[in-house]
C-alpha cells in the first residue's frame, strides 16, 4: 500500500498524505492507522490532523520543526507494520424513525430508485457504514457507502433549514444532521441521538473510523428516546 501513498505540500504548516484516489474501507483504515501513530511520533510539533476519505492533512508548528522532519515522521508512520483492519473502530447503533412525516424525501427517493418505501428503509439499515470523515459542521459525520440502489443526487435546491437529527442520503453517502442547518441532502428520517453536544463528554457518539448501524424505531420510541419533533419539514 505504501507505493500508492504520496505526500504533498498543502500550506506553510500543512502536508497532506494521499492514500489513494477512491473511498474504500481499506484505504480509510490506513488513514486511521496513520492518524493514530502520528501524535506520538510528532509530540508537541503536531497542531492537528484532518482525516478524510483517502487523505490525512497534517498540521505542524512551522516554528518548532522543519517540513523535512515532518515528512520523515510521516514516512515512519507509513512504514509501520503493525497490522490494522477496517473493522477496528467501535460499532455504534443509531435509531432512526423512518417515515414520510420525519423524512420528507423518503417517498421521492423510493420512486426514483424504483423501490417501495419499506425496501428503502430495509436497505438503509442493511449496511454497516463507516465514518469516513467529520466536517462541514461540528459533529457532521460522513458515512459510507449506502447500497448502490439508494444512490440519489443532492436536491436541486437545498433546503434553508434541515432539522437537527435529520437522517439523509447524498450520492452514496449518508449522515445525521447534528444541528439545524441549510442542506441539500435527501431526508429519510429522524435520529433522536444527539450527534454533537459541546457540553457532554464525549461530545460525539462516533469518531472517524467507527462503524455505524441504523435501526428502525417508531414515532413513540423516537419521542421516548428524547427526540424532538421539528414541526413541518418543508
Amino acid at each position, binding site marked *: 500500500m505504501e507505493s500508492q501513498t504520496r505526500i*504533498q*505540500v*498543502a*500550506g*506553510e*504548516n*500543512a502536508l*497532506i498524505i494521499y492514500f489513494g*484516489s*477512491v*473511498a474504500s474501507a481499506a484505504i480509510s483504515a490506513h488513514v486511521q492507522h496513520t492518524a493514530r501513530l502520528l501524535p506520538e511520533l510528532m509530540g508537541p510539533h503536531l*497542531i*492537528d*490532523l*484532518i*482525516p*478524510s*476519505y*483517502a*487523505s*490525512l*492533512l497534517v*498540521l505542524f508548528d*512551522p*516554528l518548532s520543526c*522543519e*517540513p523535512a522532519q515532518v515528512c520523515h515522521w510521516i514516512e515512519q508512520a507509513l512504514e509501520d507494520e503493525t497490522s490494522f483492519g477496517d473493522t477496528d473502530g467501535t460499532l455504534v447503533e443509531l435509531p432512526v424513525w423512518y417515515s414520510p412525516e420525519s423524512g420528507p424525501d423518503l417517498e421521492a427517493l423510493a420512486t426514483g430508485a424504483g423501490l417501495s418505501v419499506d425496501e428503502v428503509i430495509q436497505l438503509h439499515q442493511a449496511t454497516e457504514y463507516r465514518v469516513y*470523515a*467529520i*466536517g*462541514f*459542521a*461540528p*459533529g*457532521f459525520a*460522513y458515512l459510507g457507502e449506502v447500497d448502490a440502489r439508494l444512490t440519489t443526487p443532492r436536491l436541486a435546491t437545498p433546503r434553508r433549514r434541515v432539522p437537527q437529527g435529520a437522517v439523509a442520503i447524498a450520492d452514496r453517502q449518508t449522515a445525521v444532521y447534528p*444541528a439545524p442547518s441549510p442542506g441539500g441532502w435527501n431526508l429519510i428520517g429522524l435520529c433522536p441521538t444527539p450527534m*454533537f453536544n*459541546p457540553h457532554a463528554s464525549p*461530545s*460525539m457518539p462516533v*469518531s*472517524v473510523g467507527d462503524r455505524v448501524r441504523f435501526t428502525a424505531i417508531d414515532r413513540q420510541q423516537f419521542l421516548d428516546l428524547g427526540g424532538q419533533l421539528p414541526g413541518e419539514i418543508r
Partner: protein
Amino acid sequence: MAMVEILHPGLLSLLQDAGRFGQHRFGLTSGGPLDPEAFYWANQLCDNGAHAGSATAIEASIGGLKLRVDAPVRVAVTGGEMPVTINGASAPRWQTLPLQAGDTLELGYSKLGSRCYVAFAGGLQVEPQFGSTATVVREGIGGLRGAALQKGDTIIASTDTGGPCLRLPPARRPHYTHRATLRVVTGYQLEHFSREQQRRFFQSTYEVSERCDRMGYRLLGPPVQSQLDGILSEGICLGAVQIPPDGQPIVLLNDRQTIGGYPKIGSVLSLDLARLAQLMPGDKVNFAEIDMDLAQRILHLYYNFRRTITPDLIAPGFTEE
C-alpha cells in the same frame, strides 16, 4: 475585577483568542483573529507578555463598537483605521489607553482596514470551549453563548494594577492599503491546473467581492479552471485557495469548513492572510508563487524580527502629533 459592558456591538464584534486547535476531529474549525499581527500588538501594548498571542480580546469588524467599563482598566486598540474615542474625545490607536471607571470607548467606522482589536490588560475572562474562547458564530461555539457580542453583554476584565504605557512606533505598524499581494505556497492540486491556468492565476489582478467574511474571501477576476470536476473531500488548511467550478478563487480563512471537495492551487502565507482580511469589497489582490522552503524562511525571519521590536515607553495620555 472590572466589568466591560457592550453598549453597541457595531457591525460585528467577536471575542477571540489565538484560536481553537486540536479539535478538527469534531469538525470544529480554528477561529481566532483574522489579523493575528494586529491582535498580537494589541495584547503586547496591554503588557500581556507571554499571553500576547493568546489572551482573549475583541475583534471588531468595520466599526461601531461601543463599550463602557465600571472600573479602571488598561486597553489598546490596533488594526484598521477606525477612529477611537474615549467619552467622545479622540484617542490614539497602537498604544496603551488607561480607562477610568465609567469611561466609554467607541470605535467609529473604518475607511481603510476592516478589523480592529481591542485588548485588555490581563485579557478578558471568558470560559473556554474546546480549549479556546474563539467565537465561531457558524458553529455556535466559543465567546459568550457561541454568538457575536450583543448590546448588554458583560465581560469580566482585570482591574488596572498599574503597568507601563506602551506605544508601537509608527514605523513598526502594519501599513494597510486597498491592495495586497498574497504569497501562495503552491501545493494540493496544483498539478491539475495547466501551466496556462497557473500563469493566469498568478498574473491577474482579482477584486475582493461582497462575499467576504470570516469563512473566506471570494474574489472576482479572470476565471481559473482546473482539469478536475471535483475531488474526494479532504482536509482544508488555513489560507487554502479553492477554485470552484465558476473559476473564481476563494481564499479560506479562520472560520472555514475543515473539509471540502473543490480543487485547491495552494495556500496563502499566514502573514499575508492578515493583510487580506483587512481588505474590503472592491479592493485588489494579486498572488505570488512561493515554495515551502521560502515560506519557512519568511516565517522564521518574521518571527525572529518581531521579537526584536520593543514598544516605546510613553507617558499616560501621550498623543502624537
